[in-house]
């Protein structure tokens, strides 16, 4: 799939005609090629389900011991307490903080990754801990609709019933064979974070899982 960049195509990209291209114009999200398939697979009606990719969210991997001085400064920057338990998500100012482990968190935001990471690095200072820009590590799928839970239950070992999986909680788990972070952002809305290299496989896996409800719609 990778196109070979020859000297002539590079020259084409670099030519001054038209608006100048920056690196952000050239980047492609891991599942961009599946967008037409996602759009075509949308199911409406009583078993509604829809899938789309939300590209290029900023994700910062945060390792810091809770209850330390550096954690206090990080919390001040984020505008929220670090989540304390598995499943908890802290909602800060313009960002969300997902619990991945007792001292490991994922900050998700739409802010500029370099600037956001730099602020957290500064907050940690010289104390133990790290803030690393992991935006390219994962992509985001958004699965919505009344049948969204049914689609996920085909391959997720978690209990997804609302009594066990509350709106606003996020868990590290698997979907099919793919390790993911699953975040329930609304009663019928789930955000799925697979690693970028799994995006194509997981996108097609989800399309396959959604096909059943497409068939029901046609009956």
């Amino acid at each position, binding site marked *: 799939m990778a196109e070979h960049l020859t000297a002539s195509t590079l020259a084409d990209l670099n030519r001054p005609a038209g608006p100048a291209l920056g690196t952000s114009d050239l980047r492609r999200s891991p599942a961009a090629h599946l967008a037409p398939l996602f759009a075509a697979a949308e199911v409406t009606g009583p078993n509604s389900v829809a899938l789309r990719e939300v590209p290029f969210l900023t994700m910062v991997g945060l390792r810091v011991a809770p209850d330390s001085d550096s954690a206090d400064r990080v919390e001040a920057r984020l505008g929220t307490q670090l989540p304390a338990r598995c499943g908890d998500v802290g909602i800060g100012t313009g960002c969300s903080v997902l619990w991945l482990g*007792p001292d490991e968190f994922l900050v998700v935001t739409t802010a500029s990754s370099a600037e956001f990471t730099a602020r957290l690095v500064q907050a940690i200072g010289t104390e133990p801990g790290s803030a690393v820009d992991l935006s390219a590590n994962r992509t985001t799928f958004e699965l919505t609709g009344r049948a969204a839970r049914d689609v996920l239950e085909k391959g997720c*070992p978690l209990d997804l019933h609302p009594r066990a999986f509350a709106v606003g909680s996020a*868990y*590290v*788990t698997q979907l099919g064979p793919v*390790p993911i972070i699953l975040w329930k952002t609304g009663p019928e809305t789930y955000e799925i974070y697979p690693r970028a290299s799994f995006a194509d496989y997981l996108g097609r896996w989800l399309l396959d899982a959604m096909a059943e409800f497409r068939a029901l719609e046609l009956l």
Partner: protein
Amino acid sequence: MILISCPNCGPRDETEFHYGGQAHVAYPDDPSALTDEEWGRYLFYRENPKGLFAERWVHSGGCRKWFNAVRDTATYRIAAVYRIGETRSVPSLASGETRPTRPAASDQSLPGGAK
């Protein structure tokens, strides 16, 4: 499929976990003073009881943390889970050990541990 209760994440499918062998194997105080046989025993010799056995597990598909579990090797029943560094007295270990299990220095440097 058995459910294993991670101390951080609660009960999860066993496929999310990896096994780390016998727990509480203390790293020798002065490895260079050991004979080859003693070093070999430290490296390779482990208990293999039928019954309760203190083991290390890692929740690699979740919080990525190591913890200890006491598992019955005959029935797969997990009698207890506890964090690395915590002590837990397990007097009924089938190996006949009656001493309380204790955190060992090796617990802090686990093979393939926290990345």
